[in-house]
């Protein structure tokens, strides 16, 4: 009987509404999820290590590099042959190794979609040298809970509430930081822009005598990565500041190491 591991894929391109869909046919029941705007996926409900059985990507102005990485070479080859033409569906067969690669790549989203009910994920999954994605941290709630303030997060006068997350152990080792990473929120007046800026600050501690190579970003489809840079006052600490509007939906926070990106 047919399962996603058999590798029979149907790749669809729909100019309206500008979408790529991939279906890995299976007769197993599935769980559907929408990790962020413009990206949806489903996984076989009982397969804790399986590839996505369905992926939906809104193209926008073209697929981001992240999205290309998620789909992987063999599927991207089909997608590239379809995009720009009329609506079309094309069938292809992935080898076992290609399905395995797909399953590894999607690990962060699989764990999140299959985790029911949605719980805060303080410790993520990291495979294939890509990124880990931590959802349900309550970034927006923390921002909203924070009273209007003009102080910087690092102002000594104000008590900053730090929240902990745990990086996957191999990712932390490769990025040369402690596994424990902390985040907090800030609100400050930007005199140049003439408005209040809000966002999340992420801080990690480097292993002694090393130059940490950790990048962070919101998993919101923009594909932006911000490197964590050393704090002048605390040489072992690296931080990154990510502006975030509390009016938007709750994004997941994701991490990767510096090896595979231009920063």
């Amino acid at each position, binding site marked *: *009987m*047919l*399962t*996603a*591991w*058999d*590798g*029979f894929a*149907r790749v*669809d391109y*729909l100019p309206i*509404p500008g*979408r790529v*869909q991939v*279906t890995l*046919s*299976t*007769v*197993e*029941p*599935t*769980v*559907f*999820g*929408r990790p962020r705007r413009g990206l*949806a996926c*489903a996984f*076989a*409900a*009982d*397969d*804790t*290590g*399986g590839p996505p*059985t*369905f992926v*939906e990507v809104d193209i926008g102005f073209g697929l981001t590099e992240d999205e290309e990485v998620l789909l992987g070479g063999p599927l991207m080859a089909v997608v590239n042959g379809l995009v720009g033409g009329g*609506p*079309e*569906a*094309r*069938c*292809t*067969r992935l*080898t*076992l*190794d*290609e*399905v*395995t690669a797909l*399953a590894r790549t999607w690990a962060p989203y699989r764990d999140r*979609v299959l985790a*029911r009910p949605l719980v805060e994920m303080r410790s993520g999954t990291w495979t294939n040298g890509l990124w880990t994605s931590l959802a349900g941290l309550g970034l927006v709630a923390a921002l909203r809970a924070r009273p209007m303030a003009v102080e910087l997060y690092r102002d000594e006068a104000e008590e900053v509430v730090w929240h902990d997350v745990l990086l996957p*152990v*191999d990712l932390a080792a490769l990025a040369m930081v402690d596994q424990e990473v902390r985040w907090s929120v800030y609100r400050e007046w930007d005199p140049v822009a003439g408005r209040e800026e809000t966002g999340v600050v992420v801080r990690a501690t480097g292993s002694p005598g090393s130059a940490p190579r950790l990048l962070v970003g919101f998993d919101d489809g923009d594909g932006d990565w911000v490197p964590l840079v050393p704090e002048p006052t605390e040489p072992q600490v690296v931080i990154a500041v990510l502006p975030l509007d509390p009016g938007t939906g709750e994004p997941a926070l994701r991490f990767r190491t510096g090896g595979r990106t231009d920063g």
Partner: protein
Amino acid sequence: MADHPFDEGRLRAAASQVADDLPPDLVDRLITKYGTTAALAEEMTALGRRVWAHLDRRGRTVPPDTYPQFAVALLSVRGRLAGVQQNLANVADVYTRLLAFGDVPVGVAIATRLLKDKDEHLVGPMIVAARTEREVRARRQQPPMFIGMVTAAVVAVGGRDADDLTADVVAVLDRGDILAARHRAGLKVAPGPDAGYPVLGNADVVGQIAAYRVAIAEMGGVAASEQVVAAHGAQLATSLRRAMTTTLGGAEPDVLKGLLEFARFLGGPEAGESTEKIFGKLHPEFLSPMEFGGRYEVPVEHDSPALTGAVGGTADELLLHADHVARWVLVELFAGTRAPEQEVLTAWLTGCRPPDAQEGMAFLVDRVRRVDRRLRGPAGELPELVERAGTAAAFAVVRSNVRDALTLDLDGALLTRSIFPPLWTQRDGAVRLVASKLRLAIGRGVVNSAKASLVAAVVVRAPAQQVRRAVDLDRPETCSCDDGPRPVEEVCPHRPWGEAGRVEDYTTLTRFSGFSTESTTRMHVKRYDGPWREWMREVREEAQ
């Protein structure tokens, strides 16, 4: 005077091939009646002689190349009364009708015989469907299950020109795919598990089948749209749910009923029943969760000396020994197989199977375990080995590899390893593929899913790889195997096919399958009673 004299040897060979290609449950019933398949073939040959004479008296002849169809006609395979036919005229009738369709492969001829009397009119469509399907499969990448169902439906719905059937089916697949794509894009799926599919199926596969049905209707001139696909999808989901609440009885899993429901749905109200019958009889393998894995139990006898080990002796003795071992390997590989399984085996043994292909993985893994068990254990009395045209190439490869291995003084597991091309490039993927099939066989639920992973991780091993029955409390979360080959006594789940040594212990198995503790894993290894229980038993009984 007949053009072709009666050729007893040839008919016996054809009869024995037919006996081998029968569905397993039928073989069981026939063996109860006749003792062995050889005795059955003998009985068929005797009847064949009488039918041949019967036809000869009427001025008819049986050309030798139609002996396979002739042999099929000699059997009555329906219901409890299965056996060699009693009525000469019946045999002659069936034979004549089969011949009318030209060259019919034995497997297809047998499938037509499994139809009930009232379904006699489906014999022709079934043969046509089998032919069309083979052509479509050579041209298309779709899952064979979809191709089989759609072909059966297109043929059963009828009204198409026989010459264009292949093109028609391909057109339905193409059109169905784009309809399915549009339907999926408009489908509002709520996040979370879909309670509508408690046992089998999901919105995607149901949408796909619904789209194929709409495409078939379109071919008959019925205009269609995504809305129609959506309506059909909802209808199919409902029938699927209903099918799941009525069990088939016996050991058949519920999912089987569901797949037949797909086929029935494709045929629509008019041709649904015919589609289901054509598809179901032609493709028992699509309806089996394991795709013909682990169906035949070959008893192990413990009464004669070990097969391999140091041989010494003269070159002649070595050759004799090699021949003996090769025959055992072939018996374990091919015992009880039918034509589709033999094709999978032959492709693999002759090096035509890519090492990261999915086809027949569960089946091949099971065969590897059989050979491994045989070569490590004592040999019983060597059963007779029947060679067929299709298997000759594979047999030659195995014989030559065994001879080489023995000349190099390899024994046991090392021998099996040197005979078989790799079945995977990354063991992890093969384990997960097989686990997915086991899940369908065992059923849903967290514990069953963990069990499926456990059994797959235990069974999916190359010949020279073992499971260590021990807990490793100090094992780090990540395996540090990137540094190259590890000593055989160390446990590493990622060993490549050709590397001998331990691949699992209770700790790796616990982490992989998701059981909470090693003792839970140990308990499941001990008590497991599902498919492949014999390989689990082997692990728990083996001396370490």
